[in-house]
């Protein structure tokens, strides 16, 4: 169990909602990041892939 050391009231409903929706949002976030990475891989300009300080 997490003990919250907040000086503001986090509100029980707000914490429970995050736990309830968090998984979906996390999965959606991770999926979008992966899709972005894949698109970036295909679009990658060979010049752009060089390190900036090259």
């Amino acid at each position, binding site marked *: 169990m997490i003990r919250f050391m907040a000086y503001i009231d986090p509100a029980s*409903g707000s914490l429970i*909602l995050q736990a309830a929706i968090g998984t979906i949002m996390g999965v*959606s976030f991770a999926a*979008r990041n992966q899709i972005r990475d894949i698109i970036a891989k295909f679009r990658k300009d060979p010049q752009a892939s060089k390190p900036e300080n090259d």
Partner: protein
Amino acid sequence: MPDEHRDSSSFRDNRGFVYWQDGQAYRQINDSGQEAYELFMAGDLYHALVQGGLMVSHKEIQIPPQARGAYKVIHPQQIGFISYPYEWSFQQLKDAALATLAVQKLALKHDMVLRDASAYNIQFVEGRPLLIDTLSFDRYKAGEPWIAYRQFCQHFLAPLALMSRVDLGLSQLLRVHIDGIPLPLAAALLPLGSKFNLGLATHIGLHAKFQRQHESTAQKTRATMSITSLHGLIDSLERTVKGLDLPQTKTQWGDYYENTNYGDDAFKEKARIIKQYLRTIKPNRVLDLGANDGSFSRIATTTGAFVISADIDPLAVDSNYRQMKTASETNLLPLLIDLTNPSPDLGWANQERRSFNARAGSDVVMALALIHHLAIANNLPLGHVADYFAGLAPHLIIEFVPKEDSQVKRLLATREDIFPDYTAEGFEAAFSARYTVASKTPVDGSARILYHLERKASS
């Protein structure tokens, strides 16, 4: 630190507080804030935030001998003018919201977390929204939901959604609800269409329901979420905020300069005269009241002054702010102020958020194309206007707009003219109780007159 110098808004957090000495703000960090502060500094989150343009910088100073329970005292970068979220335009509040989320994302990268998300912790410094609270961070504990989620939704998301989806004027609900707009209220006010916006439906609609359902939960909540879920939550909030835009409406004065009866030459002449007055005054701080989109505020900034550019029109203030951002201007602060009802003292003991009048003192007040709105549209006796301006600054640059002017004719078109003293002579007589005339210049190409007035010593 003598307690009487403690900032009247700095009492919530047990880890420290802000106090004032010789006009400078300092922050005491109590022993209870030591661990979080050390992690914040040593883990380099502080430098990342300052370099990223997200937070004010600070210097540690020697602890004054009278400070009790102090682990450290810091002297932060000082802020030109403290403003409040109900004085910001839509885009200002939106940028403040996005800055808060950017801070939280950077904090998570450093294994820390933002433990509050108060809009009052953001201030516009040199044109940018910066976090000012050094004690807003804690170590991230695996599994912990975001403690400040409720506060973020109340302080930022709810007002932005209401401004975007219902009416821009609803930002003023923040004046009534000092800890942000209650989510059940926001949910009740939002139109049906908001239910089809996933972010708003979740973070406001569903959030309000969960709060109602669990408001009597007395025991500690066992809610947990993974770090990926937490990132997902922040990402969802960010996309929801970014998806909110200004409603497609026009306000009364939003297009004022396009419809004004000033010709190009008269406009340039007015600018030239104002610049000349300002060069004589050499102000550090200018208060431009009725600034519209800030055209003349910008002229004032060219003399090196910091300009508070206030107007009643939320679209004009928003346009002013966007111009400021585009041009990376650093010495201008657009603000939404209704002069006929300026921000009052609010909060605990009426001392937590200070009135506009208490903060607005400047070297010069500019009141251009404003007097007719106050005297005719708002029935204010000219003497009352002189008294108010004289309380704000020793110098006044004011434009008298006569009854022959089309803007005044428009105001009088639908009402009886009960203003026999509203003439240049009547204006000068009323203002002579408070001011002496330093300069008087008719604006060529218009019927208007510009004055530089100096406050009388007895005022």
